[in-house]
């Protein structure tokens, strides 16, 4: 396996700028899609910073003024969730999902590419199914008007970020399939 459990990659390398396939079979999605996923990841990071700030204010409020931010858990939970969903397309676009490369390292580059086509086709399918199921979740949350318990944030807000993010992930997978098949034909 080439990626790290806790840090998720061969650490310091510019992973997001490459367009087509490099010397390895490893592909990153570049171009407009690469830029879009990167921008969304930065926005997601912004949500994380907001969650950090809310938590800090809440801790200071609790110990300094005896009054935490109302519903701080819910706010942090939702801001983090939105952030993480925005990360998913970026992670796959820069090849950040861990795979076991060791077992197939001895195969020819073509065989490895073929295996990757297979795995990205399955991944596309999975991401599409999850998009479908999350949309069902979105419609349900919208219809029932379910909210968080303390401060009543509608859950469909978060779902409406999750659905397009998951769909974008499916497109990233599909683009990888196209690039991989292109590389196979060459």
């Amino acid at each position: 396996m080439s990626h790290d459990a806790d840090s998720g990659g061969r650490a310091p390398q510019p992973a997001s700028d490459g367009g087509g396939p490099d010397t390895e079979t490893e592909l990153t999605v570049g171009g407009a899609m690469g830029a879009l996923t990167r921008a969304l990841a930065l926005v997601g990071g912004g949500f994380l910073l907001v969650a950090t700030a809310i938590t800090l204010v809440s801790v200071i409020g609790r110990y300094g003024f005896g009054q935490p931010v109302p519903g701080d858990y819910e706010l942090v939970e939702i801001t983090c969730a939105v952030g993480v969903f925005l990360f998913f397309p970026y992670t796959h676009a820069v090849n950040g999902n861990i795979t076991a490369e060791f077992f197939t390292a001895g195969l020819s580059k073509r065989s490895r590419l073929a295996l990757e086509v297979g795995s990205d086709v399955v991944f596309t399918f999975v991401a599409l199914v999850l998009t479908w199921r999350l949309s069902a979740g979105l419609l349900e949350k919208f219809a029932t008007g379910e909210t968080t318990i303390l401060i009543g944030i509608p859950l469909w807000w978060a779902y409406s970020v999750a659905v397009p993010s998951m769909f974008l992930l499916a497109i990233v997978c599909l683009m990888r399939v196209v690039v991989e098949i292109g590389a196979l034909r060459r």
Partner: protein
Amino acid sequence: MTNLELGVVLFALMIVLVVLRMPIAIAMLVCGTLGFGLIAGWRPLLGLMAQVPYSRVANHELTVIPLFVLMGQLAAQGGISQALYRSALAWVGHYRGGIAMATIAGCAAFGAICGSSVATGATMASIALPEMRRYGYSGALATGALAAGGTLGILIPPSIILVIYAILTEQSLGQLFLAAIVPGIIATVGYGVAIWAYTRVFPSAGPAVARASWSARFHSLKAVWPVLAIFIVVIGGIYYGIFTPTEGAAVGAAATGVLSWTVGGMRLAGMKRAILETARITGMIFLILIGAEFYSSFLALSQLPQALAQWVAGTGWPAFAILTAIVLIYLVLGCLMDGLAMMLVTIPVFLPLILRLDFGISHDAVVVWFGILVLILIEVGQITPPIGLNVYVINSMAKDVPMTESFKGIVPFFLSDLVRIAIIICVPATTTWLAGLN
């Protein structure tokens, strides 16, 4: 086909998919959903799929993960590691192998604010590697010390792996963090001893540098105390319930960000890099957690872990023999698999088994003790060939050192790891004592 047989078949299918280069998250998700659908029915599965991806991500306990990842990445962007290394060098540089020892100590200190091993090793390498080479250290010792030192990042709390273990086993994160401190100290000292022994056998591999004056030594500690303060506030605060793990991680991330900005010279570009790295790692972890949720729901339905536990318990082997066998399995798996994936795949199977055995300590103590053991085995997996990730990362930063040299350099540290594993197996109190368990 019985549920149990289905469990075995789909478990095998998952392994096959992983071997065929499918991302581990997707392999777990595919097999988990298939199995769940076949056992519990497709309609319940569709219902589950509408909930799990969101509920796994929007979970207050899990919000601690992105925040700790962010904290580590912010630390890696600033020059904090440089100051820690300088201080350690002032104290131990005049011993034979002293720069390597300082590297280990610097990694240990950096590990107190960074929960990732590759980030710890790579950050320290950018400073210590050129120095060691300049002073004539052998490529083997220089890269070996950095690769091994990096693993202290996941052992010494905060540790992303421990956060995930805590959630997986519903164990107190504060206790797990505390439980890792003594093994972290043993590891640091053990690596120091390994360097000492290695440079006794090969004196030319790591010459000493000039001795620093006592005033310079104490002066250098100025750089250490902010890091120590963050560590104590975050870990102590979580353990004593002054704040929740998420709050502790937020406080730690903010404090580390400020430290990186003021002392470490991080600016907006560094901040952006830290955020993108955080995004990549967090996305990877959460996709695996979603896959693992389906996978473990299915495993629980199939009763496979329970059947295995029953079978092993029925053989009547002594508890410590079974534990040793599991440790050996982890050592082998660690050579072949990524640590996080290894843990998520095996814990639902091995933990029920371990919990059926009698080690003479309480249930909670066993969970904590076993968790630290697994964590250490994951560390070892990051430096053992053929895919010791830390070794690859460090070696790629040392252009003139062949890969075989780097793996040779690992040997003393690997032996030190084995001794540490033996100590922790024989003396569970090394983990449970500080966590207040018995």
